[in-house]
Each structure stands twice: as C-alpha cells, then as structure tokens.
C-alpha cells in the first residue's frame, strides 16, 4: 500500500492542486481569487503532463552522444505540449485581467456579491 502510494505520488500532488484550484474557481466570491484559482487549476494540469514525461535514469532531452537510445532521455513530447499550455494559460490570464479591469471600472468593486447587488 505504501509502495503503491509512493510510486504514484505525482498523481496525488496534481489531483490535490487541481481540486484546490477547482474549489477556488467555484466557491470563492472574489473575482480575482477565482482567477488565481484558475491559474492553480491550469498549473496542476501542466504538472501532470510533465510528470508523464519522466523516465527513471533518463536525462534531460538534449542530444549528447553519438548513438542515442530512447531510454536514456526523458520524453520531450509532454514538455512541448506544456509549452503550449503555459502560453494558453498566460493568454487566458491576460484577457481575464483585462475583463476584470472593465468590470471594476463599471461597478467599482470585484466582489461578486456586491456586483450582483448593484445590478438588481
């Protein structure tokens, strides 16, 4: 049991982080906190992908010898995919911040409760 838990510890960490972010996105009433939750959520998925790529005994994926064997280098593909996901996360955050600024200019607050109150 302990061996099982230890051999898959990367998954436990990512699931915990992801649910932390997920809870913040849904449960928090402050819009900036939701945005921070969203960032944690996306980062957790990045952590998951990166941990797929690891191979025990593998080194970083930069070619060094004359006859490379696949087992000697960690898997580069998840790193590439996650470069894309990081850029997507940055872009989403940028657009969300811009939208938050518009919300703030309109309602002068970023608390969801107060905004909903002022709409009614």
């Amino acid at each position, binding site marked *: 049991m302990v061996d099982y838990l230890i051999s898959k510890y990367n998954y436990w960490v990512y699931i915990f982080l992801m649910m932390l972010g997920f809870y913040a996105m849904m449960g928090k009433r402050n*819009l900036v906190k939701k945005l921070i939750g*969203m960032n944690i959520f996306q980062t957790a*998925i990045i952590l998951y*992908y990166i941990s797929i790529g690891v191979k025990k005994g593998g080194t970083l994926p930069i070619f060094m010898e004359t006859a490379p064997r696949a087992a000697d280098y960690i898997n580069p593909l998840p790193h590439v995919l996650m470069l894309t996901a990081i850029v997507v996360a940055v872009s*989403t955050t940028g*657009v*969300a911040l811009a*939208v938050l600024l518009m919300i703030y200019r309109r309602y002068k607050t970023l608390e969801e409760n107060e905004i909903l109150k002022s*709409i009614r």
Partner: protein
Amino acid sequence: MNTMQPQAVILIVLIPLMSSYAIPLLGWRWKGSAYFIALIAIGASSVCSLLLLWTVLKQGTIHYHLGGWLPPWGIEYVIDPLNGFMGVVVCGISFLVTLSSKESVEKELPEKKVRFYAIYLLLFTGLMGIVVTGDVFNLYVFLEIASLTAYALIAIGEDGAPLASFNYIIMGTIGACFYLLGVGYLYIVTGSLNIADLAKLLPPLYHSKVVLIALAFFLIGTAIKMGLFPLHVWLPDAYTYAPSAVSSFIAPLMTKVMAYILIRVMFTVFQPSYSIEVIPLTVILSWVAAVAIIVGSIMALAQRDLKRMLAYSSVSQIGYIVLGVGLANKMGLLGAYLHILNHAFMKGCLFLVAGALMYRTGMRNIFQLGMIHRKMPFTMGALVIGALSMIGIPPTAGFFSKWYLILGSIEAQNWVFVAVILASSLLNALYFFRVIENAYFEVSRGHPEGEALIEPNREEVPLSMLIPILVLAAGILLLGLFNERIISGILIFALPPGF
C-alpha cells in the same frame, strides 16, 4: 488526385489566419479595409471548403500531413464527409453573418472596428481549425483560439457584458482544461495524440479505468463548452449582452462546433460500441438532453428580452442535437447532423433579425414590437420563417430534423423522448407566437410594457443586413425541400462505421 486539391485543406485555415495578421497592419492606414479583408478571407475559405466537400464525396477521405511528417509523429489534417460537411456549414453561415456585420459594427463599435475584425477572423480560424484537424492536441490549441476570441468579443458588449464574459472565462477554462485532461489520460495509456492512431490503439484498453475517466472528462468538458443543460449557466448572459454582430456569429456556430467535438470523440476516437455498450453513456446523455430540451423551452417562455429568449432556446436546441447523438442509432444520428445544419441556419437568421431590430429601433423587449411589420416587412417575414422552422411546421427545415429525431426515438423504443420532442415543439410554438403576435397585430393589449413606440413608416435595414437575413430565410425553406437530397448525398456518408 491532382496536387492542388490537398493544398486546399491547409488554405481553409491558413487564409483567414494570415489575413487576421494583415488586418492590424493594413487597418493602421485604412480603417475601412478590415471588413473587406475579413469578408474576402472567409469567402476564400468557403470556396476551399466547398471544393473539399466535393472532393471528399467523390474520392474519399483526404489526409494532409503538416510539415511532411507522417501521422503519429506529426500533425495531420483529415477531411472525411462529416468534417467536410461541418466545414461548409461553418463557412457558409460565417460568410453571411460577416456580410451583415458591417452596419451594426459601425453603429455599436465605431472606434474598435480594426481590432474587432482581427479577433473576429481569428474566431473563425479557431472554429475551422477545430473542424478540420485530425489531432486531439491540435484541436485543443484551436479550441483555445476560438474560446479566447469569444471571451473578448463578448466582453465588448453592453451593460453586463464584462461580467458575463468573466463567467464564461471561468466556465470555459474549466471545460477546456477538462478536455486537456482527457487528452492527457488518453496519452498516458497510448502514447499517441493522433485521432486515427488513438482509434487503433484504444480497443484493447477498453477495460482500463483511465480510458473511462478520459471519456468522462471529454464529455464534461465539451458539455460545458456547448452549454448542455446543467452546465449552461454562462450561455444566456453571454449571448444576450454580446454585440449583435457577435451574438449572431457565436450563437449559430460555437455550440455546433462543440457538438461536433462531442461526436468526434464519442464515435471516432472511441468506437461507437464502447460509448454505447461498455458504459451506459449514451443513455445518460440522452436523458440529460431530454431535460435540457424541456428546461430550455420553459426558461425561454419566461423571457421578455428577444435575445435572451433566443439564447434559452439555444439551450433547448442543443438538447435536440445531444439527444440525437445519445440515441446512437442511424435515424437519431442523422437527425442530429441535420439539426446541426438546420439550427445553424435558424439561429443565424433569428439572431440577425434581433440584430436588425436593435440596429433600427434599439429595442429588444418583445412586448414593445407592436406593428413593427409595417416598418420592416421583409425582416419580419424572415422572423416568421425562422420561428416556424423552430417550431417545426412541415415545409421548413426544422420539421425534418425533428422528424428524424422522432424516428430515432421510436427506433430506440423510447416513447418518453417522442413526448419530450412533441411537448417542446408546443412550448416553442408558445413563445414564438408571442413574438409574432406582437410584431404583426395591435400593440399587445393591456400589457404594461406594450406601448406604441414604433412609427409606422417603412424603414427597412440597409441592404447589407437585409440580404443575409433573406438568404438565410430562403435557406431554411430550401433545406426543408431538399433535406432528402442532403441526407442521401452527404450525411449518410458521415455516419460512423457500423451504423
């Protein structure tokens, strides 16, 4: 096959992509050019997509290897009849909607034209990229392009638009991240990202829990993105507050493309037998869809804002498409495909009419429309055709897709769904006749909001707005008349193997 036809596969995405880079460059000098660049790019893309559909139907599936790398290593574009059909639908509707956007953008967003069209074209690029790709991760990238542009376009609307857009950002990101997680779960058990390769590698792994969870997350992710009933909360606000050029673009297309992703994942990445037999997934989906149809219609009945009513009606119509997918038999699936096409036409037409009303009178409350048919007779005629089609009156297109869905329900021996479809047609009739009544007859009698606000002089919208509306309305009638030919000529080939 000559060399030019395969290159059309990439041009379908490349032309709008490169044009969207050109818009800020040229728009810096000539502000008026943005609209024409967007229109020409979408037009060129439409020509390519028609060419592709024709080629696919004649010669079978087209594969295009980007960068010259073979599929499991590189990215490939795959065009099969389903893809080709979706591409033509997206291109055709986008072209008409873009054509009509000029005047309303001039009026609503005069100072943001250039960047608006750059983002608008990128949204089109994202949708086309989703449709033509044959790689699950590439699909995610284009999904994010389409989502980001949609967030931005919705946020520049009126009143509550930024808040609606922020809710959409939160929900949409959850959806997209769930999709990404599904990709990651499939990747960890197969090591591949190519759809054809995944379809080959997955069957021996169907007992695995990872594959089951992957499918679950794919479904939840796409369901959020397309606004299926319990997860639709972002949709009505977003469609209501968006600028009218945007809502008439996003409403017909965004949810349809997401429904396409759902079909693609359920029937191509996974074999139909897995989605149907191994887990009772399709049963769950069709029951959720049935609830969505009824709830969406009832919520639409409670609205007095035309755009919001149409948005809730979208929730219910998405239910039809998912119901057809969930029935998972030949008739049901044909009904879903046909409804994707028909609903794109109907919603495009109705949202354009709503935009035209906003443009000419500035009104959206359906109780204030009294006698507006004298002012805008052609627009209102289109509204009536669209509404009749939504209800499902025989010569219009909407009847036939509902007909196939009912046939599918009967084939599945499920009489509840037949009742649901009939009941929702009744509810559709209720809320659309309310609009028609207000538009054609005396000011709604005794209603507190019904005032005679319309001067009865004839004042149609400009031709650039009227022509797309009339073309879409005529399209609804033509689709109804030629539905048999569309099904036997195109859609029958788009069914997954084994149907």
